[in-house]
């Protein structure tokens, strides 16, 4: 994995951030809840989701910075959720494509 340039700095508000909201938007909260709930109720082991999340993030990080677009953690979360739903037979690939209007 190619690391970002060393000149990059952290957010200034990186510390003392205890009260910061965890989710910026309700869709992030729902995506989180759906992924965790499905695992909690045994539809897939958490590891399976996590592996897909690692892959989604790695894919983003392997693209040159100019083509990456803004970092949005929950977009990767959502991509991981879609992949794990298909790999565990909870949603068929064509259902997912129809859903995404592809």
């Amino acid at each position, binding site marked *: 994995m190619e690391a970002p340039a060393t000149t990059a700095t952290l957010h200034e508000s990186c510390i003392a951030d205890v009260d910061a909201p965890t989710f910026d938007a309700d869709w992030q909260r729902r995506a989180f809840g759906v992924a965790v709930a499905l695992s909690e*109720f045994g539809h897939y082991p958490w590891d399976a989701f996590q592996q897909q999340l690692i892959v989604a993030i790695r894919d983003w990080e392997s693209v040159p910075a100019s083509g990456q677009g803004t970092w949005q953690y929950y977009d990767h979360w959502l991509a991981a959720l879609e992949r794990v739903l298909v790999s565990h037979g909870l949603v068929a690939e064509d259902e997912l494509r129809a859903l995404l209007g592809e």
Partner: protein
Amino acid sequence: MQFGYPENREAASAARVRALEALLIEKGVITGATVDKVLGYFETDMTPLNGAKIVARAWTDPEFAERLVKDTPAAVAELDLPIGMDGAEGEHLQAVANTRGVHNLVICTLCSCFPWPVLGLPPYWYKDPTFRARAAREPRVVLKEIGLDLDPSVELRVWDSSGHSRWFVVPQRPAGTDGMSEEELAALVTTESMIGIAEVPAPAA
């Protein structure tokens, strides 16, 4: 973005999540109430208050502190916490204790594993690709930038979380806290200190 969806990325993601949840409900895989229940559990029961209570107990009971690093889930189960330890990755909890000569830092380079039952959900910067990469590569520099200037004599240990080990730090008890109750001590413990990017400050005199 996909054809037929708003161009705005935020709106597109929101629409995707709504459609996905609706499809799962329609197929009978899940109900909206189930998702609400899981979220409620995360938002009210699994918070850094749990971690703070564990740390305060470790500060006041050296034998507990020893058990805590040896078998974290078992030691945590001794406390009366609102934690479902069999779910939400609680079985993978691993505590590491700071000492005068050793400072511990928890990161997750691959995604953003976090010890949810004891620290709640991670702050946004913990998930940031810059933080994840730099904290692994040059942790001392990163700590200094965010205000923790470790003495060169202090050994820095970096723990990379995974699905099988969700690390959290037992920070050092600050000076000036003799005679404080466990409850008062717990109120001093911050999330940052349990990730290892800060120390617990001494209480204001």
